[in-house]
C-alpha cells in the first residue's frame, strides 16, 4: 500500500511539473530595424502565444502586436518614426518574458538650411512674424482614433489597401490619416459638404482620394480610376484654415 501511495505521489508530481511548467525565454529577443519598421524575434522553450507591447515611454507601453502560438516568435512593427527609441516587452498571453529597446534608423533630422542674409535681416526687423514650419508628423495615432467606423476598416483595406501598398488595415488607416495631414500642410484640393460635414480631399499628382467625417476620422481612402471623379464630388472648396476640427 505504501509503495502504491509513493508511486501515486510521484506520478502527480511529474504531471504537475509538466502541466504547470512556466514558459521560459531562450536567449534574448533579437531586433532588426529600418527607418519605419522593426522586426522582433524571440524563442521560447514551449509553444505559447506571441504578445508584444511597445511605446515611447517604458512606463506606458501603449501599443500592442500579437502573433500565433509558436516556439519561434516573430513580429513586425510598422509605421514607426525614424530615429526614435522604442521600449518593448515580449511574452505570452500569461506572462511577460523580457523587456528591451530598439532604435529606428534614419539618423538625426537634417539641419535646417542657413537662411539668406536678407532673410536674417528681415528676421531681426520683424522677429514676431516668424512662423513655425509646417511639418507632417511621421506617425499616426492609434487606428481607433483615426478611422470612423472601425468594423468597416477590414473591408476598405481589402478593397483599397493595395492602392497604397498597405500591408495591414492599421497601416492603411495610418496612411489615410497622414494623407489628411499632408493635405493640410500642402493645401491639396479639399471640398467640404456642409450637409453632413464630410471633407473630401484629392491629390492630383498621385490621384489619391479620401473622405473624412466631421471629426476628421477617415471614411474611405482610395485612388479613383475615373478621370472626372474629383470634379463630380459635392461640396464647397475650402482651405486648411477653414477646417473646424483639429486632427493632430
Amino acid at each position, binding site marked *: 500500500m505504501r509503495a502504491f501511495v509513493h508511486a501515486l505521489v510521484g506520478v502527480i508530481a511529474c504531471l504537475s511539473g509538466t502541466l504547470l511548467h512556466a514558459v521560459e525565454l531562450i536567449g534574448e529577443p533579437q531586433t532588426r530595424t529600418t527607418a519605419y519598421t522593426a522586426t522582433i524575434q524571440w524563442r521560447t522553450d514551449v509553444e505559447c502565444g506571441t504578445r508584444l507591447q511597445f511605446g515611447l515611454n517604458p512606463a506606458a507601453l501603449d501599443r500592442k502586436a500579437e502573433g500565433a502560438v509558436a516556439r519561434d516568435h516573430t513580429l513586425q512593427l510598422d509605421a514607426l518614426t525614424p530615429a526614435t527609441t522604442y521600449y518593448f516587452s515580449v511574452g505570452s498571453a500569461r506572462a511577460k518574458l523580457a523587456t528591451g529597446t530598439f532604435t529606428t534608423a534614419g539618423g538625426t533630422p537634417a539641419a535646417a538650411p542657413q537662411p539668406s542674409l536678407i532673410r536674417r535681416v528681415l528676421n531681426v526687423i520683424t522677429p514676431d512674424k516668424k512662423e513655425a514650419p509646417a511639418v507632417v508628423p511621421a506617425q499616426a495615432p492609434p487606428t481607433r482614433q483615426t478611422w470612423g467606423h472601425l468594423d*468597416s476598416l477590414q473591408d476598405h483595406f481589402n478593397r483599397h489597401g493595395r492602392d497604397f501598398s498597405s500591408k495591414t488595415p492599421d497601416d492603411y488607416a495610418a496612411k489615410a490619416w497622414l494623407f489628411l495631414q499632408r493635405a493640410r500642410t500642402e493645401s491639396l484640393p479639399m471640398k467640404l459638404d456642409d450637409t453632413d460635414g464630410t471633407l473630401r480631399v484629392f491629390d492630383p499628382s498621385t490621384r489619391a482620394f479620401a473622405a473624412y467625417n466631421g471629426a476628421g476620422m477617415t471614411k474611405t481612402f482610395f485612388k479613383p480610376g475615373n478621370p472626372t471623379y474629383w470634379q463630380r464630388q459635392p461640396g464647397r472648396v475650402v482651405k486648411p484654415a477653414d477646417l473646424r476640427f483639429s486632427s493632430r
Partner: protein
Amino acid sequence: MKITPNFCPVCGYDKLAEPPRNRTGGASMEICACCGFQFGVTDDDNGVSIDDYRQRWITDGMPWTSAGKKAPKGWNPQTQLGSLALRATLSRVKGRPPRMAVSMV
C-alpha cells in the same frame, strides 16, 4: 415595419452606419456589409448602377460580403430583398392608401 434611412438600396440591408446619400446627394462612401456596394465608389467611380449590381449579387447567390462584420443572427437575404421591394412600393404610394371596403355577410 421599422423605416430607417440607413438601408442599402441594392440589397435592403438596414443596418448601415449612415444613409447611403445625404439630402444633397453626397455619398457616404460606406461599403454595404451585406452586398459590398460602396456608395460613391461602385456607382460614381466604377459606373455600376444599383440595379445592375443587385442583379449580379443575386446571380452570385446573394452572399454576405463583409470580412470585418458578421451577418446578423437569422439573416435572410430573400426576406431582406422582400423588405426592399415593400419599401419601394410604399415610397411610390402618395398619401394614404384607399381603405378596403368590408362587407358583412
